[in-house]
């Protein structure tokens, strides 16, 4: 028998999947965007509506992505766009999760006719393509970023309602919930302490992925003129301006790249979270 050399491994503690690979890139990217969005007014050389020079100038060292038809710095405007899109997405997701939680928990926990009525409302809402329904609602409320926000919450809550309902029904049947009933705990407390904490993970994972989708939908609505109004550096609105100046590619490219980076980052993080928590796609 010959001695077999066993290679010495230095064992590293494995990082969780959401702190590795694409997800890590996503987290760094999002952190950077957040930092930019918060600190931008402190160091930005121009405001988004300031005319900085000639019109339709190509990219240069003084204006990284050139200027637009009114002579505004496109790069700075694209950065300023994050100050609209990120808060809008955050508000939409948080509100939709809140509404979805209340509806889903009520439907799953109470069951019976409450469940039937609420879930039919969910079905009706989800029967429409999101963009179409959002367009219809915004159009009827009138254009503007506030109405876009309302429209998107109305479009988005059913996803979380359905997801949470399924989880609540599954968790409700576990025996530790019986044990809480047996000791005489009230139903509200059982829901808060026993059911919701165990049912929430898929909702949070889905919300992360949806963040990117909401950014995209906000831009889409603005692009077709239902969202932010012209002087605003909203990404969708900027792309629309770029489309009218087709041969000055940089005007549309800057906000386009911004959207790409943000959506990609959220998808990276969301996918990794989904893998970590092994959630089946119960959403749509």
């Amino acid at each position, binding site marked *: 028998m010959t001695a077999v050399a066993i290679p010495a491994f230095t064992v590293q503690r494995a990082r969780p999947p959401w702190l590795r690979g694409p997800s890590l890139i996503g987290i760094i990217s999002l952190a950077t965007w957040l930092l930019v969005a918060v600190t931008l007014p402190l160091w930005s050389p121009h405001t988004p509506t300031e005319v900085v020079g000639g019109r339709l100038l190509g990219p240069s060292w003084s204006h990284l992505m050139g200027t637009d038809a009114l002579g505004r710095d496109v790069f700075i405007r694209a950065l300023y766009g994050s100050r609209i899109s990120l808060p809008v997405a955050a508000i939409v997701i948080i509100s939709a999760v809140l509404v979805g939680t209340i509806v889903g928990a009520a439907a799953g926990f109470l069951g019976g006719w409450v469940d039937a009525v609420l879930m039919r409302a969910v079905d009706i809402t989800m029967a429409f393509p999101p963009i179409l329904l959002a367009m219809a609602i915004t159009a009827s409320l009138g254009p503007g970023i506030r109405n876009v926000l309302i429209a998107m919450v109305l479009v988005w809550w059913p996803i979380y309602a359905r997801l949470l309902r399924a989880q609540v029904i599954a968790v409700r049947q576990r025996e530790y919930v019986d044990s809480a009933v047996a*000791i005489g705990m009230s139903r509200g407390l059982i829901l808060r302490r026993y059911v919701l904490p165990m049912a929430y993970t898929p909702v949070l994972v889905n919300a992360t992925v949806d963040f990117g989708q909401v950014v995209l939908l906000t831009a889409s609505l603005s692009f077709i003129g239902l969202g932010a109004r012209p002087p605003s550096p909203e990404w969708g609105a900027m792309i629309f301006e770029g489309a009218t100046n087709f041969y000055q590619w940089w005007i549309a490219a800057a906000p386009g790249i911004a959207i790409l980076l943000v959506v990609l980052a959220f998808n990276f993080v969301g996918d990794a979270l989904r893998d970590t928590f092994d959630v089946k796609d119960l959403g749509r």
Partner: protein
Amino acid sequence: MSDVPVLQVRNLVKEFRVRERGRASVVHAVSGVSFDVMPGETLALVGESGCGKSTTGRCIVRLTEPTSGEVRFRGTDLLQLKHAELRKARRHLQIVFQDPQASLHPRLTVRQLLSEPLEVHHEPADVVGQRVEELLGLVQLRPEHLDRYPHEFSGGQRQRVGIARALAISPSMLVLDEPVSALDVSIQAEIMRLLIDLRERLGLSYLFIAHDLAVVRQLADRVAVMYLGKIVETGFADDVYGNPQHPYTRALLSAVPVPDPIVERRRQRIVLAGELPSPIDPPSGCRFRTRCWRATDRCAEEEPLLIGRNRTATGHHVACHFPGDDATPTTAQPTTEQAPADQPTAEQRLV
């Protein structure tokens, strides 16, 4: 033992509506079960899987809503209580579940698990702390276990936590739903000893649900044997074990192994043929007749009632047209060592 029962169950019925291949049908899980449990007494409810014994237990504590019947606990019918009243009444009647892994919330520490029932019933904080320590002592766990989570324990320790949680609010009765079936045999004995000890110390009454007559022998005062949603035999443990009357009870008892290998080899075993019939469409007359070696036409036509062999209320009752052990199974013979080796088992199949 006073003569007023703590728990009186009368004609308890639980039917589940199910939909099978588009056809609505009814599962008769529990079909008119009645029994009493006296203060300080242990009644063992025994039967094979699917006979409705666990459903009976869950109906008594109303974790499952019974279809009809009466569950009188310390004089009040639990089935008539409104939600809020029921929550108060639950203080005195607690349940211990089969699988502590599933019945203890995985994200709560032992301290939280044990103080929760007390907090729910509005005990002041200093009482809760003291009571939790006391409970640990009762189930023989150590104070350092308090801040651990259920998954950090062995099965036996976990079940101790489950028992402590049920005892937290000082109930007078426990429904034990197969509390040792999920545990290793060596641990089972420990938990059984603990349950006996607790019964003596706290004067508890038990409804002990089990699928195995051997397990409950050491602690049951009385035994009720269930088959397909009905009680087929009930009586004092000595009577049921020593002088089983119903063929089903005799079959169950014959399945209990004997520790002496010589006796064990010569032991006559009754092996029931076939499966438990579907509770969706139970057999007419006597529900056991499809597997009984003594079944006659009468068994198919007339349902045997649970009749007392003597006139006392808690005496030995049997639901069989042909009770007793006078006639040995016609095809079952005592096994001998001369049995041919190529036969798969020395047991005789009864049809």
